[in-house]
């Protein structure tokens, strides 16, 4: 069964098509990444899928139901803009979020204590949210998102605002949940996170999904890259290099030809090119992303990341 299905989803804000005819299948029990720059429509898409807002056109099902809110007890959602009641205690916040999803308040408190202890925040259990640091408050909200042991966890930009240590913690948590058979969906504009964690991804740009499937498949869309360094600069071996080869001094960069690596090697050796170094790289998700979503979108995302790092 699919955790989420969407057909022809459209969401218009004041004439702007934030979500533009999206079809999506997210299988159960996977880590699914939604990749795209800010403003691509990721958040709107997630909010529509979760039933926070209704779409203008199209249909969606969440855990098999077309009334997403009816599945509330089985879903956990961490919104992009975090927010909690400032004067509530950490443990009460977790219990309250669990109660919203149908968990009895006392069970939520008990589980909240355990979760906080596991996260190394036992000392913050009875502290008010306003007394916590931003990172701690985020952790509390994350605990509140999973306290009721949901079958589907949706995290909107969960890594933003976290330091490297907490990012690693969050990655571990996502892996743990997935290992228990929970479907985890998260959106990000950082390709590296998606690459490390996801089996499946959807690439979103301008309200549309430009790719949807396995990370492998996305990568396989590109031929492996060959990086070659030779002693000679010219010779008969040059004919073996495919069209579109980039020359850079003694370096040659080109896509691996369809015929494979052996004919190329033979030609190089016979032509006495004098191979100083040769590497064949599988393309990364970033390269795949560039080829799928286009240079402009990729550049926009790189900018966001470096801007984010400056902050």
């Amino acid at each position, binding site marked *: 069964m699919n955790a989420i299905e969407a057909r022809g989803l459209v969401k218009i804000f004041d004439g702007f098509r934030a979500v533009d005819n999206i079809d999506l299948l997210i299988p159960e029990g996977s880590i699914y990444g939604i990749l795209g720059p800010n403003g691509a429509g990721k958040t709107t898409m997630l909010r529509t899928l979760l039933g926070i807002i209704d779409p203008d056109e199209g249909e969606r099902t969440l855990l098999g139901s077309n009334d997403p809110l009816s599945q509330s007890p089985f879903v956990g959602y961490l919104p992009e803009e975090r927010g*909690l009641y400032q004067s509530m205690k950490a443990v009460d916040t977790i219990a*309250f979020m669990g109660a919203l999803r149908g968990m009895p308040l006392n069970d939520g408190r008990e589980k909240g204590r355990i979760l906080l202890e596991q996260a190394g925040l036992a000392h913050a259990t009875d502290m008010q949210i306003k007394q916590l640091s931003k990172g701690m408050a985020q952790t509390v909200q994350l605990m509140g998102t999973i306290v009721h042991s949901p079958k589907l966890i949706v995290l909107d930009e969960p890594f933003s605002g976290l330091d490297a240590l907490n990012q690693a913690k969050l990655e571990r948590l996502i892996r743990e949940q997935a290992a228990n058979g929970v479907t985890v969906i998260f959106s990000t504009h950082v390709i590296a996170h998606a690459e490390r964690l996801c089996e499946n991804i959807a690439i979103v740009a301008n309200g549309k999904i430009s790719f949807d499937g396995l990370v492998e498949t996305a990568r396989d869309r590109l031929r492996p890259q060959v990086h070659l360094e030779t002693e000679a600069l010219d010779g008969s071996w040059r004919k073996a290099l495919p069209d579109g080869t980039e020359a850079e001094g003694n370096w040659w960069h080109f896509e691996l030809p369809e015929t494979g690596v052996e004919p190329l090697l033979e030609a190089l050796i016979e032509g006495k090119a004098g191979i100083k170094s040769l590497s064949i790289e599988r393309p990364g998700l970033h390269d795949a992303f560039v080829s799928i979503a286009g240079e402009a979108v990729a550049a926009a995302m790189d900018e966001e990341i470096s801007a984010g790092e400056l902050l």
Partner: protein
Amino acid sequence: MKETLRAAFVIGRRDFTAIIFSKAFFFFLLGPLFPLVVALIAGNLGKELAENRDTPVIGVMMDEQQADQLIKARETLSKQMGPNYFAEIKLVDIDNYDALPDPQSLLTNSDINYAVILSGSLEKPILTGTENSLRQLNASVALLSGYASNAQSTNLPAVQTNRVKSSANRVKDLRQTTGQAGMIILFMLTTLLAGMVLSNLVEEKSNKIIEILAASIPMDAVFIGKIFAMLVMAFVGIIVWSTMAYIGVSIWGTGIPNLPTPAVGWPIFLILGVIYFSMSYLMLASLFLGIGAMAATVREVQTLSMPATMLQMVVFFIAIFGANKLGEPIEMFASIFPFSSPLAMLSRAAQVDILWHHGIAIIGQAFFAILILRIGVTMFRRNVMKSGSGNKKKHKFFGLLARNA
């Protein structure tokens, strides 16, 4: 529906505990104490005045000589008994009337509010009045008449009493007072409390918690939970205040004002008062929450609170204007128009003892409250959450009233 109510309970429980355990709530409870203290002080100052005014008046219809004797007797005896012991004595100005007036009609139609009318002679006094006032004044009239006719005699004349039933008109007038008092209390409470709902969604919106709520539970549940949390808080306030008022009045005050019994009787009147307060509150709170939910900032909410209060004033004036005109179009309108209906119907309860129309009114008000709530939720989802129009969802609970949801 069950799920919506469960979720509403979760929301309501959080709101209620958040309010109750805040320091501000203490001041909220203390708030009405300030005017109460002022009222008590003012009440004590006015006490003597009030006592003078409340001294009953005996209207005397005798010949002038005997009346003079009676007044002199009162003056003499008052020196011993104190100035407030005897009722005031006033001569009925017979010249104003063509014929000798009937004592009974004097009681109901005169400008002066006579408690009793004394006629006949000093030897054979006839006292006309209601049972209550006769019992109260019988002895002192006998004493005065006896003393006036013969200061030495210890034999007091037998007073012939002429009992009148209090006229229907009079009771109706008095019951209107009860109705109006009920309306004023009801209005004050709803004005004080419903206005607080205006700002109720601002915290969630500015904190972005609304996203968590909207992702987990229906928006109806958020609205219902918030409104009922405030209703329960209002009841806590009312219970505390009325206890304080009761204690205050029994310690320092002149006792609880002696309002005439309402037509439906006190227990039912009080129950209706609680129900009508809840209804009035629920309707206004639904409206205000809906309006407040549209506001983006606290500043906007503050700006909106003035027109909201004005709206309540208008409703109140409609109701109070109609209160004394039972059955007239303005009163009918006030009873049917949902916002003024609780006020007008409470006034009715004081004046008429028919019960069935309260049932209809309460059901109507409840439906209207739900309707406003649903409109508020729909507007909120549409304009604030920017929810789409497609993929219409069927609402099980409010299906009957959901038009655009």
